[in-house]
């Protein structure tokens, strides 16, 4: 037996549909808002290891390595291969102030954790190291983001291919980031996730 829906039924369906629509919209809005919450980024114009104008390896700042709440900091150095000069004597790899060996290269490495590897690439000349290009790769399991290599690589001494980045898969996203509190240059900023990385800061650091 088919009964035609009454006017009351139609109004009821409409009301339930409208309710579901409101609930769905609210859930979508809250979800979007949750995803849009801030993340921490390093402002390259402020970080003393990255910004131009301060040079000299003795000037480097290691607060990112020493103050992050997780044991091996969420900040890591990253080498941008598109900018790297693949130099034979990379000042971020070698301690260029150390003695020179028989091969004409500095005898000590710069990274205190030996996190950078150097490999000759292309048509390699085994006899003359100056005759080759080199690829420098940073081991993320060793790097603690101390920034020493970043300071050594930046212009004008280097090409600025190495930078510090916060690894979002490691960052615990503290509301009050310990690094931002310790950073002497106020270089950590909280920005909306949509803008990270490199977006415009919309919240202050502290």
């Amino acid at each position, binding site marked *: 037996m088919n009964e035609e829906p009454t006017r009351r039924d139609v109004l009821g369906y409409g009301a339930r549909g409208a309710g579901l629509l409101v609930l769905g919209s609210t859930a979508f809005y809250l979800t979007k808002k949750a995803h849009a919450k801030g993340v921490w980024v390093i402002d390259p114009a402020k970080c003393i290891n990255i910004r131009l*104008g301060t*040079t000299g390896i003795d000037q480097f700042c290691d607060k990112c390595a020493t103050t992050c709440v997780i044991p091996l900091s969420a900040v890591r150095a990253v080498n941008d291969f598109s900018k790297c*000069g693949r*130099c034979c004597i*990379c000042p971020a790899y070698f301690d260029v102030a150390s003695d020179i060996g028989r091969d004409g290269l500095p005898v000590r490495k710069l990274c205190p954790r030996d996190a950078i590897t150097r490999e000759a690439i292309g048509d390699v*000349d085994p006899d003359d190291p100056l005759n*080759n290009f080199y690829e420098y790769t940073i081991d993320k399991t060793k790097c603690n983001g101390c920034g020493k290599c970043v300071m050594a690589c930046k212009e004008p001494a280097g090409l600025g291919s190495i930078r510090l980045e916060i690894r979002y898969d490691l960052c615990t996203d503290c509301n009050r980031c310990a690094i931002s509190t310790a950073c002497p240059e106020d270089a950590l900023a909280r920005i909306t996730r949509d803008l990270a990385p490199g977006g415009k800061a919309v919240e202050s650091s502290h």
Partner: protein
Amino acid sequence: MQYRQVSVFAGKGTGADRFAETLYGIGIDAADLIYAVGDSEVKVFDTQGRLQQRWATEKPGYCVSISADRTVYVGEIGQVELFDAGGRRKTAWTDPERLGFVTSIGFFGDNVFIADAKDRCIRRYNKSGEWINNIGKDNRTKGFLIPNGYLDFAVDKEGVLHVANPAKHRIERYTMNDELLGYFGRFGTRQPEDFPGCCNPTNLTLTRQGDVVVTEKAAPRLKFYDRSGKFLTFVGPELFDPNCKNMDIAVDSQGRVYVLDTIRLNIHVFACEGGAD
């Protein structure tokens, strides 16, 4: 031998004799007029730093050289523009393949040598703009090692090219037929004759006596070697902006050395104490 600064001119500013944003290249003609390129202009100064004339270039110029017949060659991206001494455009050699990024130009007889920093080698042309051969390209690294993206050289009285090969920390000498004759220089941070950093020296010129004059970055220095590579002297970094790099150099007939500060956009003039070299 000691060099001391005798004057500074140009500088950052909006005046006709200043540079607003960029200053990349310098060259000097036989009459000791000083040509500087920056802000897509050529500006001509006398030795006192007084502006004599200026004209616009089609594209930003990165180097300038003046041939014996007073043709002004301006190196740009993809081409070389040629002007007469009055700034009237004569022609342009447009060759994006061989003139990708022109950062130095030199002459010997009917040969015009052009550094293409994009392809990391020197092109040899005749005066009609016809390509003859490359220099420094046919080697294991397929060109000079110039992480700074700037290739500089000078040609001596015998037609030998002296080239800065910064990532090898060397000055190399080539015949115009691409034969490597020899080199001097090595990496080092403790002795002033050595070349520090990833890639030095960046720029090079020759005095009339054949001494080699180079500039370095980080820290910016001006250094002098004799033709055999023996270190003579240097001018320390305190006179230049510490972030300077690719500081072009030229020498006039009196042996005065003109050096660009590419950050402050100054032209520094140095003279050898006790007279010209």
